[in-house]
């Protein structure tokens, strides 16, 4: 249930996420050495405009991408369609975006 616009949104966000994912993975691999504490995470990220943009962008992209992806699966596997499917896509997108932004604010701003 994708038209060309949803398709493009999904593919473009996928492309955007490539650098995000790679950096994120690298950071994790590097960071987890010797265990992980909240203080460690926060000290690295808090107050940094770079990480703000980085994770903010990541969250937006992942929300759009994930919502569209789940939409496809919901249509093909659960048979949802029409308004319900549209609503679900939007709902999932907003939930992901909301939670994601809250996390970004928690980690970067607060």
């Amino acid at each position, binding site marked *: 249930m994708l038209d060309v616009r949803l398709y493009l949104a999904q593919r473009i966000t996928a492309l955007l996420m490539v650098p995000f994912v790679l950096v994120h*993975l690298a950071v994790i691999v590097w960071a987890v050495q010797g265990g992980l504490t909240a203080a460690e995470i926060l000290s690295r990220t808090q107050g940094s405009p770079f990480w703000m943009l980085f994770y903010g962008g990541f969250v937006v992209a992942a929300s759009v991408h994930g919502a569209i992806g789940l939409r496809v699966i919901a249509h093909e596997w659960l048979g949802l369609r029409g308004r319900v499917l549209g609503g679900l896509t939007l709902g999932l997108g907003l939930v992901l975006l909301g939670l994601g932004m809250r996390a970004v604010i*928690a980690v970067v701003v607060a």
Partner: protein
Amino acid sequence: MKTLARSHPLWLAHVLHRLSGLALALFLPVHFWVLGLALTDPAMLDGFLAFAAHPLVKLAEFGLVFLLAVHAFGGLRLLALEFLPWRAPHKTAAALALAGSFGVAMTFLLQVI
């Protein structure tokens, strides 16, 4: 009728991509929620991270990283297929994507342990 008929490399790659995407999409809210704890209750976050040091949980995390890698490389394969007008042997691309994912995930695992 037997369903084995569908199990060819590209079909498997598709199923893997879908399952990993689904798992990621389901995990993501949890991940966000945990990080969001830093806002309300940093102690709980630490508690969670301590809990996360448990080997079983580590294994689960390894799974997630693996999924992300699988999905990302699989996705790159698809993007290449769709946007580069080539006629390369797609099976090979699928296999390479899978190998790449394993590589990344193994590195992660070795680091953690």
